[in-house]
């Protein structure tokens, strides 16, 4: 189950990191950040920082390791927000 608002926020963050030849429309729940969206793996740390700022959470190294796809990221965000409350 995906939170539509979280997905929209995440999409908004990720689009900056897309290579020129990948459109925003390519970002779906199953997208793998590196293998499918062709995002430079060095930029994953920047996406993590942006996510932290946008959602007011903190992601640890192991969260980042698990964050392969958009769905992974959304699950981690949901979990962190739940833990916070």
């Amino acid at each position, binding site marked *: 189950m995906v939170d539509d608002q979280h997905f929209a926020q995440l999409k908004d963050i990720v689009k900056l990191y897309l290579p020129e030849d990948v459109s925003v429309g390519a970002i779906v729940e199953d997208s793998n950040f590196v293998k499918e969206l062709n995002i430079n793996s060095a930029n994953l740390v*920047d996406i993590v*920082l942006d996510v932290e700022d946008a959602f007011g959470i903190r992601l640890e190294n192991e969260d980042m390791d698990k964050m392969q796809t958009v769905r992974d990221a959304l699950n981690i965000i949901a979990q962190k927000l739940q833990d916070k409350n």
Partner: protein
Amino acid sequence: MNRRVVVTGLGICAPNGVGLANFYDSMLNGKSGIMFHQELADLGFGCQIAGKPEIQESLKESYFTALQLRGLNSSGIVYGVMAGTDAWMDAGLDKANKDQPDWDSGIIFGTGILGIDKLRESIYLIDDNNARRLGSNSVMQTMASGISAYLGGILGCGNQVTTNSSACATGTEGVIMGMERIRAGKAERMLVGSCNDSGPYIWGGFDAMRILPSKYNDNPQEASRPMSASASGFVPGSGAGAMVLESLASALGRGAKIYAEVLGGAINSGGQRGIGSMTAPNSEAVQRCILEALKDARVEKSEVDIINGHLTATSKDAEEIRNWSEALERSGKDFPFINATKGLLGHCLAASGSVECVASLLQYREGLFFGNRNCHDLHPEILELVDASRIPLKTISHKPGILAKASFGFGDVNACVIFNDYKEI
């Protein structure tokens, strides 16, 4: 193998002009780029004036992607990428396609220190136990070779891509290194140039050495006075200059316009021996460098038509003129025309050599010789060696022949490059 090397593209990001057209206009009309900076006054600097290119935020978007601009806090990268990309386009070259680099094109783009503002930002985060918040771009904006790495990726160069560093000789040294690589047949095209960050963290150390003028904060455009009796120190500057060097065969093959030929050059050091030191040049080394450059270029002393000096506006200017005069065995009315670009720009430090080479090369395109600003009162020791007519105050019409450009840097290092009007032989 000793192939001819020519200059086919120029790019510039200077305190008195961003882009070739603006820069040329300023050089032609003697427009200074030196201004008062409130930031330096607020920090209690003795010298509160500097030369800093004015870059509109919107202009950056033509050179950088939105992602590259995010968190970009390295003025040297901004200046260098703008000048380097402009030079490439001016040469009529394209960026390499997405899948294949251009194996025959390389980059030697120097700097002194890169991204000092980014470094400061990073240090604050680290000291606050927050290294994890640095993100991915702190390394590439602060590694010295960041500038050549940015340009290499933007243009897609597949030959040598590197950064040289030899203090204020950096820019001129890069031209010679690029020329040598093409001469040796290891590359067809080399983008050469250099950049220097701006701001108090760059200039503060020089202010502390008391080698910057402190009495011109109210009239900044008069402050940089190369060859003048009233010279009182160099005005700190910043920016970038870039040139595309190309084998003559490649240039002719694609019908490129040719600004000038790079006939030769030499690089050496005074070893901080004799009167040479970390901060002062060994005159013997300077003269050897000039003579070795002429030899490399196969040019006679009598053939030198124009000199663009290092001439920073310190007490060392007279010594530099003596070195030119003794090395070339020429004086009085027989001395070549000489100009000092720093009168208008200040001392752009690691960028000075490349910025001044670009200024020198524009003289070939336009058939003129740029005048000298702020030296109506020539230093008496200089007047003993050179007739005042050889140091024009205003830009004059003159078809340049052989031009010698030298730069000297901390560490007692020297570089001298020889250009000539391109002639089919």
